[in-house]
């Protein structure tokens, strides 16, 4: 892919591909994991193909920013957390959220068992590993007095956390606790969402321009995506094996653990009633207001521009 | 006023034009200068050289060299002989005064031709080139037929007695052999003006004599002008048409001896009384100089 092409150019190029199927690219927010189960399910089961799409899922990584890649037109769809999609607004990147994979945020603080951390105030006096710039940390600092926290950079390692019994690290409840268990390090977690900061996670998005001019493709994609997740609920373990093929360094058991723990976030909560991918204006507005308050958003705007449920299948 | 300009070697047009302008300039000052300029291969005009260490290497050095002459420079160590030669080659500029080569500043001349060759006081060979390739260097730089160049290089190397060492590297040679490569390199370029800084100092008497004869041969054949630095008074007398004796600190020209022995010179001449006479005169001039300095 080259630089100068705007989204529309890429799209027309994409549309011209032979065989009647349209090629689109999806950038994942991380190396393939269970949180991308719906994508791989849709690919594996031929759901995208049935809808006339040929989808390339490009793995993310520590420093890969799907927001930027999609904004630059190098991919049509991306996965990111809701707050990232909102913050991109500051830069004039107009994205539209199409489906929320997880109805809530599995982001959590993980600490050693018996550390007696009940509330966020209890983080004071401890070393906390958080990724510099991660939004919920700003939110928490705004909500609580965390001046006693020694803030350390989170870098994807947990060794230093394990080494220091009183320390706390950011984590996903769907992932890290499993690895700790493997290492016989008993841990507990405290969800960030308990603070009231609960963005949708792993949100499918595209640029506003793209959505406006390629409604049909977007419709096909979102439908397939949701169908993919539906089918993943049935045969998660089988799809996980496919994912291991894409991300050979992760253990199947870890994926299965994730599949289990993320189940409620995907299929439960609001989705239980309203279907997979469901989003509400209220949740988006709350999040937007929270970000506004802590200064991560520079100006107010109507969230209705920011997300749409029009491509989601009608609630059953 | 009619001035006949008869350049003694073939100038290309651009150089001829340079010459013309400098001629026109000098015309304003008087026609004599024109004639002088045209005939001089090298002209030191009141040249002084002060290195930035404060060392006065040359002091009001004034010396014309006519085309086709063979000039030897004699003088104590450190008196500025190398400095003078380097200036002729454009590798140093006078602090005051002027050096001209064929009427031009040497830097200009160098830029336009390949007519000057220099045998440096140390051999100055490229360590990564074999003997043959070192000699080929000036020919390569000038261009021309590769095969002919190689032929030329080999024949000069044969002359200096190194034809068995074509593929040796400088570090595999003895001191005298390195110097001979350097001499071969200079001769291979067939220069009009040959500057040699103690080229034979590292050679034994017999090799030296052979090379002296060869050098004189080439000099005559090619109508070169040679500036030759040596510490050997016999050598100076044997080779030169004129000897410039210099004195030390600051380097001045102390006397000029015209050697009126006929060319071609033969080894036998060395026993000739006239020869000894010149040797004595040159030695005396050197020694006087030394004494004068001591009494000061």
């Amino acid at each position, binding site marked *: 892919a080259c630089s100068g092409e705007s989204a529309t150019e890429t799209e027309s190029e994409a549309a011209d591909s032979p065989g009647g199927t349209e090629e689109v690219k999806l950038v994942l927010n991380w190396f393939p994991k269970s949180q991308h189960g719906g994508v791989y399910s849709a690919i594996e089961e031929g759901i995208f193909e049935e809808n006339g799409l040929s989808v390339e899922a490009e793995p993310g990584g520590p420093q890969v920013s799907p927001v930027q890649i999609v904004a630059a037109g190098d991919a049509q769809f991306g996965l990111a957390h809701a707050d990232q999609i909102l913050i*991109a607004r500051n830069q004039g990147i107009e994205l539209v959220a199409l489906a929320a994979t997880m109805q809530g945020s599995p982001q959590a603080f993980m600490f050693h068992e018996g550390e007696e951390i009940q509330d966020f105030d209890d983080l004071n006096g401890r070393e906390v590993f958080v990724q510099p710039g991660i939004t919920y940390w700003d939110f928490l600092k705004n909500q609580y007095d965390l001046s006693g926290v020694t803030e350390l950079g989170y870098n994807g390692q947990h060794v230093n956390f394990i080494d220091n019994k009183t320390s706390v690290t950011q984590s996903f409840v769907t992932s890290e606790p499993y690895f700790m268990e493997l290492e016989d390090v008993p841990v507990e977690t405290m969800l960030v969402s308990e603070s009231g900061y609960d963005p949708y996670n792993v949100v499918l998005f595209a640029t506003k321009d793209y959505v406006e001019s390629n409604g049909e493709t977007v419709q096909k994609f979102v439908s397939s995506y949701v169908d993919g997740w539906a089918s993943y609920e049935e045969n998660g373990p089988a799809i996980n094996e496919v994912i291991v093929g894409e991300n050979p360094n992760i253990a199947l058991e870890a994926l299965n653990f994730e599949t289990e723990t993320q189940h409620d976030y995907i299929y439960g909560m609001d989705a239980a009633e309203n279907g997979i991918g469901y989003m509400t204006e209220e949740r988006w507005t709350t999040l937007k207001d929270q970000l506004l308050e802590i200064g991560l958003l520079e100006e107010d705007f109507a969230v209705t521009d920011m997300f749409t449920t029009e491509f989601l299948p009608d609630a059953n | 006023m009619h001035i006949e300009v008869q350049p003694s070697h073939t100038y290309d047009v651009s150089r001829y034009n340079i010459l013309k302008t400098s001629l026109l300039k000098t015309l304003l000052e008087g026609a004599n200068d024109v004639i002088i300029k045209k005939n001089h291969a090298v002209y030191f005009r009141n040249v002084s050289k002060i290195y930035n260490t404060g060392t006065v290497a040359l002091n009001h050095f004034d010396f014309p060299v006519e085309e086709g002459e063979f000039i030897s420079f004699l003088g104590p160590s450190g008196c500025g002989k190398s400095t003078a030669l380097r200036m002729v080659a454009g590798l*140093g*500029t006078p602090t005051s005064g002027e050096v001209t080569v064929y009427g031009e500043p040497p830097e200009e001349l160098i830029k336009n031709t390949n007519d000057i060759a220099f045998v440096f006081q140390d051999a100055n060979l490229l360590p990564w080139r074999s003997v043959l390739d070192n000699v080929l260097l000036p020919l390569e730089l000038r261009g021309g037929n590769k095969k002919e160049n190689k032929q030329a290089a080999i024949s000069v190397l044969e002359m200096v007695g190194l034809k068995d060492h074509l593929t040796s590297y400088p570090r595999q040679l003895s001191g005298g052999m390195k110097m001979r490569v350097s001499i071969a390199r200079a001769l291979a370029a067939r220069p009009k003006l040959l500057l040699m800084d103690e080229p034979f100092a590292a050679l034994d008497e017999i090799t030296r004599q052979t090379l002296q004869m060869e050098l004189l041969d080439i000099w005559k054949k090619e109508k070169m002008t040679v500036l030759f630095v040596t510490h050997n008074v016999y050598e100076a007398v044997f080779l030169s048409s004129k000897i410039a004796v210099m004195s030390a600190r600051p380097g001045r020209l102390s006397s000029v001896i015209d050697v009126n022995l006929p060319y071609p010179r033969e080894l036998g001449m060395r026993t000739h009384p006239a020869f000894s006479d010149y040797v004595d005169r040159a030695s005396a001039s050197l020694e006087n100089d030394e004494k004068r300095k001591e009494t000061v």
Partner: protein
Amino acid sequence: MAMSEVEMTKKQQALVAAGKKQKPFASTFKELYLGPIIAFILFLSLWQMIPSVLGLPHYILPKPTDVWEATVSDWSLLQEAIRITIFESVIGFFLSAVIGIGVSVLLASSKILERSIYPYAIILQTIPVVAVAPIVVIWFGAGFNSIVVISFLIGFFPVISNTLMGLNSVDKSMDELFTLYNASKWQRMWKLRIPAAMPYMMAGLKISCTLSIVGAIVGEYVAGIGGGNGGLGYAITVAAIQVKTSFLFSCGIAAAILGISFYLLVSLFSKMMLGSWHESAMKSDK
């Protein structure tokens, strides 16, 4: 360089000694600074134009003006970050230089030592910092100390590699002189090999000084900031997460300016050290 330096000196000297062909300021200016200035202006205008021409939005390639705005508006953050990074990288570089040269000298003093230990220096260089970061953090604590250690780890190899090369490329005949005079191993080291290796050492330091900045930034990245304030590495991470590309560029440019200043300082030092003899640093007098 050799050429133009020679040229210059010739002129300078004519100026000093003969005092006739006075060289006007304008021409010095033209020779020395006009090129870089034109290049800089060209570079800036190209950069200003490219995003517009290619239609790249500012969050992908911000224009110089965007970067300038971001710099001005977040100047206080940037300033603090620069201060911290300077501190970290200067110490890291200092360690690279001292330990690098020290180890090289040690290794060069014995073929067996060199063969036995040098591979570990290469290992230290190639082993990815992320792999050893936890250990570094455990041994040195998160934050400053670890960052300095990582900056050192990244910067020291060029010093060792170059210095060793220099120490081992002593002129043969000078070496023989020392053999003849029955010089002890260390005399040979101090009086021959180290002076002879100077130019190589200095070339190594020049590489290392820019790497030590990269090291400090990477260090903050992998070793965390340890409770203190964050330097450029921290600022860059935050900017990247918040897609503040313009500010990210401000940080990047700040790092680059640091690098250049650092490089110039080390070059100056190198000129001073080599001044007395090495061709590349020497203004020759003809």
